[in-house]
């Protein structure tokens, strides 16, 4: 047998994690807190994801939502959309869940952003992956300059992380702004799509690194608005979601032109995507 085969781990083999906490945050999103069973390291950089594996059902790529500054466990937020995600929602505290990862080499530029303004633009569940870096910045607040978070939600019933958002909106070291797409009687805040908030953060946008994550339709409009605000492509980062079957750069499903979302991403620098028309 070949030496390398003897030492290399099976990249398709999940390790086990225990479900420690779960909470339904709105009708479709479930918050989960997990800890890895084995003693091998589980170190990750914001933006990395794991393949959540339910035996007999399959796997789904899910970005780690907690910050690496929180040790001993990690958090996921999972929207119920199909087989795997439904099965995760049915899991009970103490159950074992398969985890592969952390995966993804295209992470948030934690180091590069140091000393700069950082702006997060999130659409709906797009908050979940960005939250890892947002909390990382908050935990290392002195390393970064201005911090702004824009969040657009489709309707009030889909809003989540209420208390966390509440804290953010009361802290003065973070500029947090929120809008709801459709009017709702008991909503007193902004109404409209998330792009309407962009002109309001002109100051923060200056020399900032901007991070975008949301549903496929959102990217085009946010990028247009950023272009208007003259943010150069080198400073824009997109968190892209694609179908994935392996998460390790083999199965081909997540390919965006020449890139693999799983290994080259899921976080991409916009200027690198020039030759990837399929990205947006």
């Amino acid at each position: 047998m070949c030496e390398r085969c003897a030492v290399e781990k099976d990249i398709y083999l999940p390790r086990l994690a225990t479900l420690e906490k779960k909470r339904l945050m709105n009708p479709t999103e479930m918050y989960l807190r997990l800890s890895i069973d084995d003693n091998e390291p589980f170190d990750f950089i914001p933006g990395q994801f794991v393949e959540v594996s339910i035996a007999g059902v399959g796997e789904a790529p899910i970005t780690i939502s907690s910050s690496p500054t929180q040790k001993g466990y990690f958090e996921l937020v999972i929207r119920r959309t199909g087989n795997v995600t439904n099965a995760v929602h049915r899991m009970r505290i103490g159950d074992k869940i398969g985890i592969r990862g952390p995966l993804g080499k295209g992470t948030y530029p934690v180091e590069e952003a140091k000393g700069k303004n950082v702006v997060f633009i999130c659409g709906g569940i797009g908050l979940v992956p960005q939250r890892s870096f947002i909390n990382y910045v908050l935990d290392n607040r002195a390393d970064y300059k201005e911090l702004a978070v824009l969040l657009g939600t489709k309707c009030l019933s889909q809003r989540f992380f209420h208390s966390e958002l509440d804290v953010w909106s009361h802290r003065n070291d973070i500029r947090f702004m929120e809008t709801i797409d459709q009017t709702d009687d008991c909503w007193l805040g902004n109404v409209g799509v998330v792009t309407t908030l962009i002109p309001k953060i002109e100051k923060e946008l200056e020399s900032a690194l901007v991070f975008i994550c949301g549903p496929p339709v959102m990217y085009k409009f946010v990028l247009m608005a950023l272009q208007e605000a003259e943010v150069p492509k080198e400073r824009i980062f997109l968190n892209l979601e694609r179908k994935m079957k392996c998460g390790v750069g083999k199965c081909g499903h997540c390919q965006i032109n020449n890139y693999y979302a799983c290994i080259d991403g899921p976080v991409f620098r916009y200027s690198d995507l020039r030759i990837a028309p399929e990205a947006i």
Partner: protein
Amino acid sequence: MRTVTIDKNAFRRFVDEIIKRQRVIGVCAKGDRFDFEQLESADQLRLDYDVTLQPPKKYFLPPVETLLTFEVGDGYKSVYDDTPFVLLGVHPYDMVALNQLDTLFTQDNYDTHYMKRRHNATIVACDVVSPSKNVFASSMGTATVKDGFDVLLTDIGNAFVMESGSKKGDRFIAKAQGAVDSSEKDLQARQKIQAENEKRLNNHKLKCEASYLPKLLERAYDHPVWEEKAKTCFSCGSCNLVCPTCYCFNVQDDVNWDFISGKRQRAWDGCLLDGFTKVAGEHEFRKKRADRFRHRLYRKCKYVPEKISSQIMSCVGCGRCVGACLPDIANPVKVYNRLVDDLGIK
């Protein structure tokens, strides 16, 4: 590493000897075509074949393969296929394809499932005797092969020249009764055959150097040829499935009737198939046939070669997709030549 000559009868006896000890897969006739099959006797072996129906990749990335088994709540176990085997009669272009897959399955993340099979194989490549109807390996620079194989056979008339390409190949050759070190004359005969093959495996002629294709494609993204060709594309994936360098796969779980144990399998997939990029919420990133059609031809001659920094394209010119495509649109040469005609070489 040695190069020997063995006469054809001795070679047949040699193959029969190996069959007694090991699993030997070789090229056999299948109706009026050829394919790799497990040999029961050396008489079945047809090294004069034109092209096999399926590329040899299936012995390393099988059409369906169990990756792991599981017991609910009790974790997962890797499943490996550990039987050594000899793969006899791989044509140079297919060998080049395997070399590329080797890189792809070890790059970034090391795929132990593919690689264990790879290491269990002794690959005996062989120079082409009868070019197939659609082969264009000469255009792609894959009509002959210099490395990757354990042994390379060349039919020089009444004998084979056998060159070892690895330690495994050395051991293989050492067992061949009646093999003698090749004479200068034999080597020259071989040289002549290979030189001829480099020109003659060219039933579709590419109008530019193969290494120029990535550059050409850089300018061709919005060319009308994609829409034009894809109009009649069935999205049947045949072009993907017969290709020696296509390696995309799907993964699926199934449980046993105890609903506790089960397995996770991967199966060949194709980027031409509808739904290949479909995610929850019915969003599909390459929904249009033309987008998928273009993607394959970009993968072959831009994305993959760039990914593995290869001067050789990922279309190795076997011509299988040409014959497999019912509406006759899959021929890479026809598409690339059309682009050369329209866009010129810059």
